[in-house]
């Protein structure tokens, strides 16, 4: 076969390869799904670790489905704190506000220094204490 034809075949084959890869890439994208884009509103949507043994300064973006916080590696937000329970508290966002639920923890959950017994709203600047770890809503 003439060299020119072979050259053209080669380029065609490379194009074929990349077409295949492109399709795979598109399939990966559709498989992962872009999901609804999360819009940031005024505030009260982040938890920042202020004081604690580990992960100081860690920022957790709150998502509408909520987070469990605790010592267990299964918790959404894991804190290394001997005074925290495995699943200590749950934080949920409802219509722009943040609610803190205590999940029957041994040492209690404190919002602005007060131990909570019922789901308690926490706004921007409020602190949430779990064990010896203090988090601030921002």
């Amino acid at each position, binding site marked *: 076969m003439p060299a020119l034809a072979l050259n053209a075949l080669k380029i065609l084959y*490379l194009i074929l390869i*990349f077409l295949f890869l492109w399709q795979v890439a598109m399939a*990966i994208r559709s*498989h992962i799904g872009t999901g609804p884009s999360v819009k940031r509103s005024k505030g009260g949507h982040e938890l920042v670790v202020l004081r604690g043994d580990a992960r100081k300064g860690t920022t957790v973006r709150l998502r509408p489905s909520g987070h469990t916080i605790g010592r267990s590696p299964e918790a959404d937000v894991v804190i290394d704190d001997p005074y925290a329970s495995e699943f200590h508290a749950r934080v949920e966002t409802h219509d722009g506000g943040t609610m803190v639920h205590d999940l029957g923890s041994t040492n209690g959950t404190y919002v602005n220094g007060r131990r909570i017994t019922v789901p308690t709203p926490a706004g921007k600047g409020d602190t949430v204490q779990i064990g010896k770890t203090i988090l601030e809503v921002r």
Partner: protein
Amino acid sequence: MTRNTEAVFLLAGTVLASVGVAMVQFAGGGWLNADVALTFVSFAVAFGALHTSFRVWAPGANPLILPIAIFLAAIGSIEVFRLDPELAALQRWWLVLAGVAGASVVWLLRSSGVAVLRRYRYLFLAAAMVLLLLPLLPDTWPIHGATVNGSRLWVRVDLPFAVRALSFQPGEVAKVFLTVFLASYLADRSEAMSTVSRKVGPFKIPEPRHLGPVIVAAGVAFVVLIYQRDLGASLLLFGLFIGMLYAATGRTFYLGTGIALTAVAGIAASTMFSHVRVRISAWINPFADYTGAGYQTAQGLFAMGSGSLTGSGLGLGRPDLIPAAATDFIFAAVGEELGLTGSIAVITGYAFLVAVGFGIALRSRDRFRKYLAAGLTILLGLQSFLIIAGIVRLFPLTGITLPFMSYGGSSLLASALIAALLGRISHEERT
């Protein structure tokens, strides 16, 4: 993205492989012959078996694993065919065997799930150890080890009726078994291992007894290095241990210690063993000993250099000049005949595979499955990285195979097992 789309991808991949083989024949001045059809059939059977097993016994399996696998296998088998049509004929059998083996794994786990592997972890550990030590069997036994290119990692079985001795590389499968063991072990211990209890200066370190596995890992890797003179396998095993520890605990401490230990072991090994020293000098300056230790690396570099942007074309280069081109240096052969463009496509394929694998791990809720998926992905990613990095001189050359692409039954078998397990894990996490 469904099973049907997967089937379309697999058909496209099969065509990709056959067209490539046809192009090699055109370039050689020949016309189509049975090889093209046989390539088509072997790919169709191997991936058809895997696809059918997913369809029947793991319908929720991630449909992206096999399309990426077939892409890599296609490019690899074309280059193997181009280098040696006889090897390619064997490779077709290996491919079918690997596909059927992968499908059988999916079938075996159909009702019990991968959880059953967790229970038998010490069996897997023992099996992996035996497999790793098999090549050390003395030469006079009917089943014996064999030294190839200075590394003792082959096992040969002398069959009375066969002309050729049956040979395989048990280390390839041992790696998968070890991953199963580690995932199971870590699923039980990761909590304790991630708690930080002591502080030494600025470093927070876990309880010393949790360091046991890391030290065992380093030990195993070093034993493999000393007795089998296999730099690649020892690095790969050690990297796998460290990567999985990091994935399970999220502690950078393990990563740091691992890298530090690798560096220390590397320096120690290069002063103690001549074969390691030779590898390192061939890495830093392959042209200093062009006719000797640096020959393979240098030939690989020449091949990729002459390949330039789009390559010489399939069947038109001289990748046969590279020693071990069909196994370890398959990436250089691709670089020569399909150029930088083809090499990038291959690396993209591995990147996709790793992305899909970690995606499965991240989505898994069960710890064992999470760690297993992560471990298998680390294994695939690290192995491809180490050998490609060795070929392009990013890293000292380690003689390991490129998963899915290199010639070799053991390597293909291990790759198919990984694909099957990843598929099964993703199925279980879906349902």
